[in-house]
């Protein structure tokens, strides 16, 4: 005989889960009791939101499903932001929540919330398990749905009596999932791929526009091979950074609102946009009807609903990026170089490099550049959201997929620190940095408790400008410098770290940046760096909201 809780733990282990992030509470007591004797590692976070972000960070860094666990009511509700973050960026996580006993469902019982109802719009699918007998299969199905097709979060809600009930249950040897309403397409349509290749051969100014889908399907190698074979330049979205090494001659860096000028100019002048694993998000396209207006568009995506959602597409290909790129590699015979196009792009690169003032002031971009040099493409870099995120995207040189972890779609402040904890468990061999702002770090600062407790060696680099920097930047540029509620009082982050038993350094001088970063890297446990940076530094270049992406402001000095 097994309790539901036991079936749950066994089910997780059968899915290959080793680490889960959670927070106990009333109705999950039976599950925690089972965890007590289990070989599953449970990391006790200090707030459930952090458990969801940590599971997400684990998933992005490893490519495997991350798992978080919370109690009913407030515990479950605290997961919601983390689940929504994973949903917007298509990250495979399974969230487990306790629920009041089935007899009390719908009764406004203590700590009851309709979490399947609440998370309906932010999960790929969710379950309210009403019978212990169903639990084993639900776990299998949930993991299957989460990691296949367009990946995403799945929630399983477990009433207390489902966890406590004892039944005789053996997991079936071959418990295959067969859902008639869910059969994702991996292989691209052969004739559509032929058409795409034909278009590439006809094009004069082709450009790869690459997103998180390429990272998710582990297709970076294929992408780089195809780009090199054809000599086609590559621009990536925020989520696609790392798909091609930053210093690759064909790489144009990020496009969009805070993209490089050369990437945005290339999109605007391109006559063929080969879009893979992207969704034409408004932060990428700016004004839609001027985006790549001279280009025909090929769009490869595993989610058919993304194709043609925002922009009319000439060649739609539904399929997994990796599979489609492999097919293209196998089919392309003729090699082509786009000499004229490449030299045009080269001249933009020369003329409009990414630059910031070199005046000895402690500028945030400098901190990122120094870290980038020190790590030399290694490590896992996680960011918070806002200016810190954009500067990291612009100035850190990413060389590997899954080395860059950030909340793109939802833009969740407070994401980075707990996600960095999760990333460590996925890649314990790598140094993990959380690039933070003083605003976003304070949104999940309580996790200093967790990293201290387990000695999780996450290094936090706070670009401390005592502002909610990105909002302040918009107020400066578009609201007449009226800094409405964006200034933060000074905080001594080193002291706070010390209170948790964590070492830290405050850095106020440009000359001390490198040695401070080195100290953090060389320290075994967690570390906090408080960089007192230029307060009113802006993220440039920038496309104002609603403008065309070639209408950029700032970031270019003769």
């Amino acid at each position, binding site marked *: 005989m097994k309790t539901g809780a036991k079936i749950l733990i066994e089910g997780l282990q059968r899915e290959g889960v080793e680490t889960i992030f959670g927070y106990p509470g009333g109705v999950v007591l039976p599950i925690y009791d089972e965890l007590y004797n289990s070989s599953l590692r449970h990391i006790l976070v200090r707030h459930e939101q952090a458990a969801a972000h940590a599971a997400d960070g684990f998933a992005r860094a490893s490519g495997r499903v991350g798992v978080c666990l919370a109690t009913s009511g407030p515990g479950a509700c605290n997961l919601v932001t983390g689940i929504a973050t994973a949903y917007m960026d298509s990250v495979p996580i399974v969230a487990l929540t306790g629920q009041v006993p089935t007899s009390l469902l719908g009764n406004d019982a203590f700590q009851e919330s309709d979490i*399947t*109802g609440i998370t*309906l*719009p932010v999960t*790929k*699918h969710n379950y*309210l398990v009403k019978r212990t007998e169903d639990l084993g299969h639900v776990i299998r199905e949930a993991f299957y*749905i989460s990691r296949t097709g367009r990946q995403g979060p799945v929630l399983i809600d477990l009433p207390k009596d489902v966890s406590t009930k004892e039944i005789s249950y053996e997991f079936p040897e071959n418990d295959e999932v067969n*859902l*008639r*309403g*869910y*059969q994702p397409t991996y292989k691209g349509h052969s004739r559509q791929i032929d058409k795409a290749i034909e278009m590439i051969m006809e094009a004069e100014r082709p450009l790869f526009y690459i997103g998180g889908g390429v990272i998710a399907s582990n297709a970076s190698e294929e992408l780089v091979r195809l780009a090199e074979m054809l000599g086609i330049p590559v621009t990536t979205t925020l989520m696609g950074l790392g798909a091609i090494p930053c210093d690759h001659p064909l790489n144009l860096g990020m496009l969009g609102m805070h993209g490089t000028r050369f990437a945005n100019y290339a999109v605007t002048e391109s006559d063929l946009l080969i879009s893979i694993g992207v969704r034409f998000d408004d932060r990428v396209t700016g004004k839609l009807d001027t985006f790549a207006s001279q280009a025909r568009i090929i769009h490869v995506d595993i*989610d*058919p*609903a993304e194709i*043609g*959602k925002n922009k009319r597409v000439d060649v739609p290909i539904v399929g997994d990026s990796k599979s489609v790129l492999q097919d293209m590699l196998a089919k392309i015979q003729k090699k082509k170089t786009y000499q004229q196009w490449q030299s045009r792009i080269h001249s933009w690169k020369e003329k409009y490099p990414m630059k910031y003032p070199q005046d000895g002031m402690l500028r945030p971009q400098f901190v990122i550049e120094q870290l980038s040099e020190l790590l030399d493409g290694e490590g896992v870099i996680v960011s918070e959201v806002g200016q810190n995120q954009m500067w990291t995207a612009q100035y850190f040189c990413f060389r590997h997929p899954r080395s860059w972890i950030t909340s793109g779609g939802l833009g969740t402040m407070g994401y980075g620190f707990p996600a960095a904890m999760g990333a460590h468990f996925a890649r314990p061999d790598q140094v993990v940095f959380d690039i933070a702002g003083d605003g976003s770090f304070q949104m999940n600062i309580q996790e200093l408790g967790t990293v201290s407790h387990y000695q999780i060696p996450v290094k936090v680099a706070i670009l401390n400008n005592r502002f909610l920097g990105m909002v302040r930047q918009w107020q400066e540029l578009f609201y007449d410098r009226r800094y409405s509620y964006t200034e933060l009082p000074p905080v001594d982050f080193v002291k706070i770290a010390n209170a948790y038993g964590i070492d830290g350094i405050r850095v106020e001088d440009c000359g001390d940046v490198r040695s401070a970063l080195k100290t953090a890297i060389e320290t075994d446990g967690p570390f906090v760096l408080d960089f007192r940076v230029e307060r009113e530094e802006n993220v440039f270049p920038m496309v104002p909201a609603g403008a065309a992406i070639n209408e950029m402001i700032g970031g270019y000095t003769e």
Partner: protein
Amino acid sequence: MKPHTLSVLVENKPGVLSRVTGLFSRRGFNIESLAVGTCEESGTSRITIVCIGDDAQIEQVIKQLNKLIDVIKVSDITENDRVERELALIKVNADPGSSRAEIMQIASIFRAHIIDVGTKTVVLSVAGDTEKIDALEKLLRQYGVKELVRTGRIAILRGAKTVKSSK
């Protein structure tokens, strides 16, 4: 912008209707009518949705519906040769006397049935396409429609063709 009739085959699982309707409201799609019930296959239900939108919007609706795990198949049968019906129950003021006789006459022209007779009202049951029910309602308004209940449209393809789970 024209009305589209979607026939949606779904797993008969708890919450499936709220998944479908939630999607419409969340993505700003308008539902004109919706009818749901079990169908020929056990464990499945069929939802008939009439929604208004341009081609791009309807394409998005269909793609988004298809993404729901519990949705087995979505068919836009707007362009197909099909039969559509809706059932309405209408409670009309009908004092014994001349108006009651007139109402009965109108009912027989529309092949509606009088299914309840009270001292001051009668209840009509009518099945047909939307236009027919609209027309009947318009005619009955002069007597005073006290209550009107409509099922929403259901539709089926003519001939041997079916909307089945092949997805």
